[in-house]
C-alpha cells in the first residue's frame, strides 16, 4: 500500500519537472496557457469538452439540426415508436444509402390504442441537407433546409419516436437543448454577478457587512430549495408571455444559485487580503476597485470559472425539475423539463418509454458539464 502511493506521487513530480525543464516557453507562458495545457492532459475532461461543444452547436443551430419543427404534428403517428436508421439495404443486392422503414398502424379493437408495426416494404430514403418543414433561422431569414431528414418532404421520420401528438421527439429534444442550456447559462451569469459582487464585498470589507451577508446566505441556504423555488415560480403570473416567464424563472434560479459562488469568492478574498502583494498595491495608492480588479481577481479567475462550470448543471437540473412540475416554463416553449412533463403519466411511460429520452439528454449534459468543471478545477489548482 505504501509503495504505490509513493511512486504515484514521485512519478507525477518527475513528469512535471521534466515538462517544465524541457519546454523553455513554460516559464514565460501566461497562466491561462498553463491551465489549458494541463487541461488537455485530462482525457475525460477533454472528451467531455468535445461533447459540451456538440451540445452547444446543437443548441445554437437547433432549427437547422432538427429534422422538422417541434410543433409539426401528425394525428396518424401518436406515440409512434423510434425508427431504426439503416445504412445499407441488402434485401436486393447491396445499396448504400440511409433509409428508414415506414409504419403500418392498426387499431386495437378493444382498447382503441394505435399499434405500430414496421413496414419492411415501405422504404423512406433519408438524406442530408434536404428540404423539409419551413422555419425561420434565428428569426432572421426563412428557409427549409434541414441537416437530416426524409428526402421526400411528405414522408415522416421518427428516429426517437413521437409524442402523444405525433410530434418528432428528436426535433423537440434538439429545440429543448437550446432553451435548457441557455437558461443554465443565463442563470449562472446572473448568479455570477450576485456572487462576485456580494461575495467580494463580504470578503474585502469584512466586519459587520461580512456578518450580515453571511447570515443572509445561511438563511437562503437553510430554506429547502425545491419548496422555495416552487413557491416563487407559482407566483409567476400565468398570463406572462414565454419570454417573460423565461426571465422570471432564470431570476428565481439564480436567486438561490449565487450563494455558493459568493462563499467561494469570499473565502478567496479573505485569504488574499493578508497577502503581501495586496498590501504593496494598497501602499502604492491603488483604490479598492483597482486592488480587486487588477491584483486580486486574476489570482483566482480559474477557480471562479471552475465554480461557474460546476453550477451550470445545477441550474439545468433545477429548471428541469421546475418545468417538470409545471411550475417552470410553459408548453409552447420546449425545454427538456417541459418535454418530461409528458412522462408524468404512467400510461405514457408504459406504452412509449421514449418519452423519457429528454431525461437522458439532461443526464448526459449534466454529466459532461460536471467532468469539464472538475477538469478545469484540477488544472487550475497550482498545488496539485
Amino acid at each position, binding site marked *: *500500500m*505504501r509503495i504505490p*502511493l509513493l511512486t*504515484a*506521487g514521485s512519478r507525477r513530480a518527475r513528469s512535471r519537472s521534466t515538462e517544465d525543464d524541457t519546454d523553455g516557453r513554460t516559464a514565460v507562458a501566461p497562466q491561462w496557457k498553463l491551465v489549458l495545457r494541463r487541461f488537455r492532459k485530462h482525457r475525460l475532461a477533454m472528451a467531455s469538452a468535445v461533447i459540451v461543444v456538440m451540445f452547444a452547436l446543437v443548441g445554437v443551430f437547433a432549427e437547422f439540426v432538427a429534422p422538422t419543427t417541434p410543433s409539426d404534428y401528425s394525428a396518424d403517428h401518436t406515440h409512434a415508436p423510434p425508427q431504426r436508421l439503416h445504412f445499407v439495404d441488402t434485401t436486393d443486392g447491396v445499396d448504400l444509402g440511409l433509409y428508414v422503414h415506414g409504419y403500418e398502424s392498426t387499431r386495437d379493437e378493444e382498447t382503441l390504442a394505435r399499434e405500430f408495426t414496421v413496414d419492411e416494404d415501405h422504404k423512406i430514403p433519408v438524406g442530408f441537407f434536404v428540404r423539409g418543414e419551413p422555419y425561420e433561422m434565428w428569426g432572421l431569414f426563412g428557409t427549409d433546409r434541414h441537416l437530416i431528414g426524409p428526402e421526400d418532404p411528405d414522408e415522416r421520420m421518427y428516429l426517437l419516436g413521437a409524442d402523444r401528438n405525433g410530434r418528432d421527439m428528436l426535433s423537440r429534444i434538439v429545440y429543448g437543448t437550446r432553451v435548457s442550456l441557455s437558461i443554465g447559462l443565463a442563470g449562472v451569469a446572473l448568479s455570477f454577478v450576485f456572487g462576485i459582487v456580494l461575495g467580494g464585498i463580504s470578503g474585502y470589507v469584512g466586519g459587520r457587512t461580512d456578518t450580515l451577508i453571511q*447570515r443572509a446566505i*445561511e*438563511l437562503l*441556504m*437553510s*430554506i*429547502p*430549495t*425545491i*419548496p*422555495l423555488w*416552487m*413557491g*416563487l415560480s*407559482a*407566483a409567476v*403570473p400565468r398570463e406572462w408571455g414565454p419570454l417573460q416567464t423565461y426571465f422570471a424563472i432564470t431570476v428565481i434560479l439564480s436567486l438561490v444559485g449565487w450563494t455558493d459562488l459568493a462563499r467561494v469568492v469570499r473565502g478567496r478574498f479573505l485569504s488574499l487580503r493578508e497577502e503581501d502583494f495586496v498590501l504593496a498595491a494598497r501602499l502604492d495608492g491603488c483604490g479598492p476597485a483597482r486592488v480587486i480588479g487588477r491584483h486580486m481577481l486574476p489570482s483566482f479567475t480559474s477557480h471562479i470559472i471552475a465554480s461557474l462550470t460546476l453550477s451550470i*448543471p445545477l441550474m439545468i*437540473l433545477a429548471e*428541469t*425539475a421546475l418545468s*417538470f*412540475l*409545471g*411550475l417552470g416554463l410553459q408548453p409552447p416553449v420546449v425545454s427538456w423539463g417541459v418535454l*418530461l412533463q409528458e*412522462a*408524468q403519466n*404512467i400510461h405514457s*411511460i*408504459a406504452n412509449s*418509454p421514449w418519452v*423519457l429520452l429528454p*431525461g437522458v439528454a*439532461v*443526464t*448526459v449534459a*449534466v*454529466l459532461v458539464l*460536471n*467532468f469539464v468543471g472538475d477538469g478545469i478545477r484540477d488544472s487550475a489548482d497550482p498545488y496539485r
Partner: protein
Amino acid sequence: MWAFVTRRLLYMIPTLFVISLVSFAIIQLPPGNFINTFVAELRAQGQGVDNAQVRALEERYGLDDPFLVQYGKWISGILLHGDFGQSFQYQRPVSDLIWDRIGLTLVLAVCTTLLSWAIAFPIGVYSAVRQHSVGDYVFTFIGFIGLATPNFMLALIFVWISFRYMGESVGGIVSPEYADAAWNLGKVLDVVSNLWIPVLIIGTAGTATLIRVLRANLLDELRKPYVTTARAKGLPEWRVILKYPVRMALSPFISTIGWILPTLIGGEVMVSIVVSLETTGPLLLDALSSQDMYLAGSFILILATLTVIGTLLSDLLLALWDPRIRHAQTAKG
C-alpha cells in the same frame, strides 16, 4: 459547551423569524387570492356569485388587511395556539392536514440520511484507499451518474421498470389492504417494505456527493506525514487508516447533514409527486397552484424550520465529534 449550545439556540430565533416572514411573503406573491381564483372558477362554470358573499368571505379570512397585519395574525396563531389557519380548499384546519404528511417526510429524510451514510462510508473509504483501482473507477462513475440524473428521472425509470417487468403499478407507501387499518405490526412491516424504494431513489444524489466528499478528504489526509509515522510505528494498516485519517475525514462528512437536509427534502418533494407518496410534496404543489395560502405557507415554514433544526443538530454533532471545533467554539463563547 453549554454556552455554545445556548448561543446556537439563540441564533436560531432571528433565523426562524426571517424564515417565517419569507414563507409568508412567498405565498402572498401570486396576484389575486384564493377567493378570486375560486370565484373566477365558479363564474367560468356558469354559476353566479354574489359580490356581497365574496366580500364576506374576504373579510372572514382577513384577506383585505395589509401584509403585516395578516402576517401578525398568522404567526401569533401558530405561536400561541399552534393554529396554522384554515385550508381554503379542504375547508379544514391546516394542522389537521399536514402533520401526518410532515411525519412521513421526516421519516423518509431520516431513513435516507442513514442509508446514504451506510452506503457512502465504506465506498468512500474504499475508493480513497484503493485510489485508481477498478473498484474506485466503477464507484466514481456510478456516483457521477447518480449526481447527474435528476431524482424524479430515477423515479420515472423505476416506475417504468416495475410496470414493464413486474406488472404492477407502484405508488403509495401503505398497501391498499392496510390503507384504513390501524397501526399494527403488519402495517409497519408493510410500510417498511414499501419504503426502501423511495428512500433509495431520494438518496442517490446525496450518497454520490457524500462518497466524493469523503474520498477527496481522505485522499488529502492519507498524504500527510502523520500517516507515515503511524505506519512506521508498525500499526496494522486497517488501524492506521481507520484510527486517524478516517476520523479526520469524517468531520466534513458530519457537517454535510446541514446542507444535505434541504436537498433531501427537495428530492423527497419531487419523488413523492412522481411515485405519489402521501408526503408533503404533492399537497404542497397542489396548495401552491390553487393559492391555498395558509396550507402552502405552513408547509414551507415547517420544512424550513426542520432544516434549521437539522443544521443545528449537525453543528452540535460536529462539535461533539471534533475536539478542535469544540475548543474553538467554547473559547469563543
